């Protein structure tokens, strides 16, 4: 794709496995395993999957908050993985992240004034304290908070307000790309919607590109342009949101969507898709397709040969026997 803002090519990120004698294990777990994808400029790309699938690791690797083992992360065509530190620092201001937990990601001993000033101190040291204060007030207004709260500490805010501050901080340097890692998951539903709407408004205002990392599929269907489904470090399927939800190609996608409880009691007696088996361990992967042990459609080939990503009509799927 020519208009990709961020492209990932054969990216692998691994960690040393826990366990072993006194925790000394030499095995490595590939949290992200040979992943390739493109995030188009101005779009919302959603990365979905269950805990341990590698979606958070991938998000961090995209911003180079984690070093990759191999592969490329291209930001406007330049590989972040091979960038010199000074160049990387200049690029960093163009990419930001909003974390899940607004309680943990704001320094409890810093006033909001200082939290919002920090990005300027680092990246725009020429600004006077007066100018930094003005920028802080603008940022707060942008996220729907009053300028008077600059002197407050994080504990004086509700969860939703704290998340707004996290967003204000992320937007301070006018980034082009923002990773939202479960940015609304810790919030109550009525507040979630407020914050999601704010994120969408800001996208239009600043022509932002978002990567939403989330397990909330209903929100994804409502907001995202494209969706990538991850399972145990691999991307199993990528496609435009509506097509992926209405005709999933990968069996895992189908079961993941089918497991979401629907807010409509009249449909509770529908035939339900239940996935058998438990979460698999990333340290002990099966030889063929990693979903095969839980897949009701798995055949012999699936247990022997790992499927490669294949493309059909603008959609991608890693399955020997795609649905539909």
């Amino acid at each position, binding site marked *: 794709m020519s208009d990709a803002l961020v492209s990932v090519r054969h990216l692998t990120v691994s960690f040393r496995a826990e366990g072993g004698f006194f925790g000394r294990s030499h095995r490595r777990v590939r949290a992200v395993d040979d992943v390739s994808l493109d995030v188009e400029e101005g779009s919302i790309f959603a990365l979905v999957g269950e*805990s341990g699938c590698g979606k958070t690791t991938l998000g961090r690797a995209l911003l180079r908050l984690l070093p990759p083992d191999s592969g490329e992360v291209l930001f406007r065509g330049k590989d972040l993985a091979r960038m010199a530190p000074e160049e990387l620092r200049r690029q960093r201001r163009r990419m930001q992240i909003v974390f899940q937990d607004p309680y943990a990601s704001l320094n409890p001993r810093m006033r909001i004034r200082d939290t919002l000033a920090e990005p300027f101190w680092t990246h725009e040291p020429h600004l006077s304290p007066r100018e930094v204060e003005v920028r802080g007030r603008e940022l707060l207004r942008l996220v729907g908070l009053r300028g008077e709260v600059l002197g407050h500490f994080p504990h004086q805010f509700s969860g939703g307000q704290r998340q707004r501050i996290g967003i204000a901080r992320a937007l301070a340097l006018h980034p082009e790309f923002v990773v939202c890692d479960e940015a609304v998951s810790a919030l109550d539903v009525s*507040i979630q919607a407020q914050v999601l709407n704010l994120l969408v408004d800001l996208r239009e205002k600043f022509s932002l590109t978002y990567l939403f990392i989330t397990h909330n599929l209903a929100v994804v269907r409502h907001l995202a342009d494209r969706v990538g489904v991850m399972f145990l470090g691999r991307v199993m399927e990528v496609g435009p949101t509506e097509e992926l939800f209405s005709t999933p190609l990968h069996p895992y996608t189908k079961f993941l969507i089918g497991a*979401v*409880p629907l*807010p409509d009691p009249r449909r509770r007696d529908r035939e339900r898709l239940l996935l058998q088996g438990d979460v698999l361990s990333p340290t002990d992967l099966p030889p063929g397709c990693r979903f095969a042990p839980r897949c009701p459609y798995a055949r012999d080939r699936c247990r022997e040969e790992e499927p490669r990503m294949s493309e059909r009509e603008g959609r991608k799927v890693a399955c020997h026997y795609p649905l539909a």
Partner: protein
Amino acid sequence: MDRGNAVLQVRNLRTEFATRRGIVPAVDGVSFEVFEGKVTGLVGESGCGKSVTALSILGLVTSPPGRVARGEILFEGRDLARMTPREMGAFRGRDLSMIFQEPMTSLNPVKTVGNQVGEPLRVHLGLSAREARRRAEEMLDLVGIPEPQLRYGAFPHQLSGGLRQRVMIAMALICSPKLLVADEPTTALDVTIQAQVLDLMMGLKNRLGTAIVLITHDLGVVAETCDDVYVMYAGHIVEQGDVYRLFERPGHPYTQGLLRCVPDASKPGRRGPLASIEGAVPLLTALPPGCRFAPRCPWAQELCHRQIPDLVAVGEGHLVRCWRAEEGGKP
């Protein structure tokens, strides 16, 4: 509404906490009934009092600073609110049991899971260790734990979150309790595992006839599992009714707002802004004098800000705490 036998009747419950800013009523005048073989949902957002209601039923409110200040919790004709901790201990785990959100903190990390599942049988029913083990293995099998004989000797940290929650369910149901209180039982689980665990709970409920109080913030889970629903807001019940009616014709502006906020994953996205409820839940230390939802309510009028409305019947078993209840909560 004919619902059969009420296993639990909570009447006018008020549970308070002493804080630096004075006495705070986390649960304020809550009444509800739970019927045999039925699932009763207590729904609401953080701070609405749903979990404190559960803890009050179970006699687990930490005191001080908390206490059940008023009301009755009638279980089989006896008032749990007036029982001594010792009397309560004899009930809990036998006729009345519970599941919490995070199984890792509710299970004993230094005992095998089999031992913990069998413990209520030894403590409450005086079964021998051998008999308790046999029944525990059966129960582990029943909740879908693969290789139950092998897993009997496992410690909680050796199991995944989904399996741990199955162990909690096995432990909660082993004495065939009449009432199960489940506080966000699937919130910490992945969605495919949540579907399995809910399916398991509903299957066991149908088989054993257990009455369930399900506490959740997830309206999807409510729609999939509950028979009766109570919506809570800032310590009050603001709406109650049969699940079908409540989702089809929500009467309280808060319930209406909540239902609009939740997108449906089975329907095409609308691509517009999501519905939200402006403002935030009031602090329990600074409750408004009138309807507690009035500061966020799009239809609030002068009376709403001044006086708390009563629960008013708008249909069979359908009650709404709103001055505009008769007009469906709208002007």
